[in-house]
């Protein structure tokens, strides 16, 4: 946006500015409806990561890294893993692994139902989205680091 040279042409930048929010919202929709429709944590996480990768391809790496830096991607990835593990280990308080005793199951086929499965989906989507973005950032920044030697 400020650097005119970085990234692709004006056409690609304009279309990206229009669509990148929709892609991110669609990923969040897939994650939140993971227990009702096809999709879930992994698919939604991939779509969320693709929205940031889309931003990086169109505008260059500085703009995308300002939205989500590599340090924050690493933190969010670890947070997803710890969240999933703590949800699973919380079941030990009631008896065994992955036991759902603290959330009501709700009515079936509504958004707030299925106990801890939506929480697990959100944890998986954090892990997958941040991890995939971190892989892409590592592959992009890799070349610049070794060229300085």
């Amino acid at each position, binding site marked *: 946006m400020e650097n005119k040279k970085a990234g692709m042409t004006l056409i690609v930048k304009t279309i990206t500015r229009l669509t990148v929010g929709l892609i991110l919202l669609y990923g969040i929709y897939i994650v939140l409806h993971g227990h009702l429709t096809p999709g879930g944590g992994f698919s939604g996480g991939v779509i969320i990561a693709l929205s940031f990768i889309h931003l990086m391809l169109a505008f260059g790496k500085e703009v995308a890294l300002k939205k989500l830096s590599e340090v924050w991607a690493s933190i969010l990835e670890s947070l997803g893993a710890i969240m999933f593990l703590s949800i699973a280990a919380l079941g030990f308080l009631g008896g065994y692994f992955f036991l759902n005793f603290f959330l009501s199951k709700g009515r079936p086929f509504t958004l707030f139902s299925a106990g801890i499965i939506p929480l697990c989906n959100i944890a998986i989507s954090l892990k997958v989205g941040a991890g995939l973005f971190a*892989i892409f950032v590592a592959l992009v920044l890799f070349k610049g680091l070794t060229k300085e030697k």
Partner: protein
Amino acid sequence: MSVYFLCLILFCIGLYCVLRKRNIIKIIIGLGIMEYAVNLFFILIGYRYPARAPILAKDQVIANIVDPLPQALVLTAIVIGLAVTALLVAIAIRIYEKYGTFDITKIRKLHG
């Protein structure tokens, strides 16, 4: 039956790409084509014609659904394939930095 042979043809296209091409990027793409041919084969084994997706919806009885086991297996295989592709691309970048080419016939100096 013919769709299984189409999967075999797709697999053979990927195999040709891996064995015959010289560019490392094209070899990685060939590996991806082989992987997706195998995934498509697993999905087609579980599929039956008058059937629907194995998801419980409102007021539907559990009858006439496709086999969900290959689908769960393929989902895991896609994740592993993603990691393998990332590793291959990282190795390809290192090779390009060291030798300045993607052509595997020009990579001859294997010291250190």
